[in-house]
């Protein structure tokens, strides 16, 4: 399976009379974008804004972040199950608007979370301070239930991102990256002497505001299965998760799954990248048993020598992580885990809710309890009053001078557990 990602480097996004891409600038007709969002009759209004790296802008509360892409060759379309049919994706050519993102904000529940600062201390921790962000601030019609609102906001972002991606359909990319995934037989023949390495990708799947979708299917109702790594690049995995800003995986990070990228980078050189296993993180303990049993079974069946296991979220998923680790190690398959930590503000507490000696190789995204002081920024997109009630913030977080004192966990993707960032802890 071969996928070519054509990267179009975007340096700016501007509103203009006509939606188009010229050079490295994406021009958007504001009314066209609004119309796409307002097709959904559960949405009352939408405000658009653009936030650029280095600007004195804070976006909060962030629901999801998506990177616009378009399938230009091969089966299906991006975000299968949502904005395109469920045709299998992952093959052919896909153009990517690299350097921009579509960010959704809106008050789904009162304690919603997620801060993106485009400048200053907070900007160091979020990857989305480096992208030009089109922000959709979405307000629902009166009386809309939270789960319907969440779905409306999720869909609005996917639709807008798909439409913006379409602008890049006929653009010649600035850079092409080729990802070729061998079948099991090909891999064995081509690289008989390289270690066989896989990736167990854990998906948050606990309930409202904690869900992930694979080809449109709610991951909590799935058995552990396999997905081709290139399918992930075409938006096969979509986030419906908006709790725990620091360590949830926004759709953008799924589309750019860093573990998949790094394993591809080593494929055929130091290792044979055999495949990706997706498994869920359910609330029900029997589900956890079954899902982790299946992860281990698939690892064994694939004859893997090692797997990287990435996590999403806090607490309950620590149990899934450790179960996966123990069972996979018990099959003689070596594991490296990626997690983050809640070690208390002073770093002195036990970091994970579960632990085991089998977990002897761990990469961490850092301690999410660390307190950060974010300066007052000139402009706020979204709703600053929620800073007091986002995860990791507390009454008094918003200082009289407009600055924010809060835990690192308020910052979107600051301690990402797919290893997207450089933050760590010792």
């Amino acid at each position, binding site marked *: 399976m071969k996928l070519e990602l054509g990267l179009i480097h975007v340096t700016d996004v501007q509103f203009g009379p006509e939606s188009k891409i010229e050079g490295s600038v994406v021009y958007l007709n504001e009314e066209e974008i609004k119309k796409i969002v307002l097709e959904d009759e559960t949405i009352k209004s939408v405000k658009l804004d653009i936030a650029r790296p280095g600007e004195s802008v804070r976006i909060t509360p962030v629901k999801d972040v998506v990177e616009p892409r378009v399938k230009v060759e091969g089966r299906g379309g991006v975000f299968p199950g949502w904005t395109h049919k469920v045709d299998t994706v992952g093959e052919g050519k896909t153009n990517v608007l690299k350097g921009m993102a579509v960010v959704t904000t809106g008050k789904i529940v009162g304690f919603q979370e997620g801060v993106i600062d485009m400048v200053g201390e907070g900007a160091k921790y979020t990857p989305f301070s480096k992208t030009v962000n089109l922000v959709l601030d979405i307000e629902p019609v009166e009386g809309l239930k939270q789960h319907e609102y969440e779905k409306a906001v999720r869909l609005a972002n996917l639709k807008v991102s798909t439409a913006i991606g379409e602008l890049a359909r006929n653009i010649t990319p600035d850079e092409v990256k080729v990802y070729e995934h061998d079948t099991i037989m090909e891999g064995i023949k081509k690289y008989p002497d390289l270690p066989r390495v896989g990736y167990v990708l854990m998906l948050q799947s606990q*309930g409202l505001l904690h869900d992930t979708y694979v080809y449109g299917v709610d991951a909590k109702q799935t058995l552990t299965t396999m997905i081709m790594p290139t399918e992930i690049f075409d938006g096969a995995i979509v986030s419906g998760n908006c709790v725990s800003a620091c360590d949830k995986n926004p759709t953008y990070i799924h589309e750019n799954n860093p573990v998949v990228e790094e394993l591809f980078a080593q494929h055929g050189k130091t290792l044979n990248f055999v495949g990706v296993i997706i498994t869920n993180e359910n609330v029900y303990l029997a589900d956890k048993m079954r899902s982790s049993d299946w992860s281990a079974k698939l690892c064994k069946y694939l004859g893997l020598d090692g797997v990287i296991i990435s996590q999403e979220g806090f607490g309950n998923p620590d149990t899934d992580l450790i179960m996966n680790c123990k069972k996979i190690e018990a099959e003689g398959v070596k594991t490296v885990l990626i997690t983050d930590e809640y070690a208390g503000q002073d770093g002195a507490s036990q970091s994970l809710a579960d632990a085991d000696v089998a977990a002897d190789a761990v990469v961490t995204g850092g301690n999410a309890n660390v307190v950060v002081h974010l300066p007052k920024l000139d402009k706020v997109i979204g709703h600053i009053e929620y800073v007091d009630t986002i995860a990791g913030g507390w009454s008094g977080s918003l200082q009289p001078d407009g600055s924010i004192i809060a835990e690192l966990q308020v910052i979107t993707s600051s301690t990402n557990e797919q290893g997207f960032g450089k933050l760590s802890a010792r």
Partner: protein
Amino acid sequence: MTIVTNNPDVKSKYEDDHTVVFVEGGYKDVLVKVRDLVHEGHQLLTHPLMGSLKPNETPYRSIAVSAQKGPVDTDSVILISESIETFDKFAKIVRPDRGTNTPERLLADFRLIDLTLISSAVDFH
């Protein structure tokens, strides 16, 4: 299935079809009640720390345990004990607007999240 909860919305949704043990108290009181039931031989069915809301953020907690008592289940004992330890770790960081101090305007949303999380386990089993 027995559901231990301090969330009135969970009680009203499930009390007709399941045994609901309603706890007058906080998140920790629910954990402690579940610990007692586990020590009596009930088995944990859902993870006590479900959800990404930290224990010092949401005031509500619902946990499902087996209706039947059997021999004490060691895994359940360990999991509930570890969960209580984790709770205590977070409880040290007091938030004026969170946990037990959550203002009225946020309570309904916290109840809803708790309800949907436990429903994701109860409704499918």
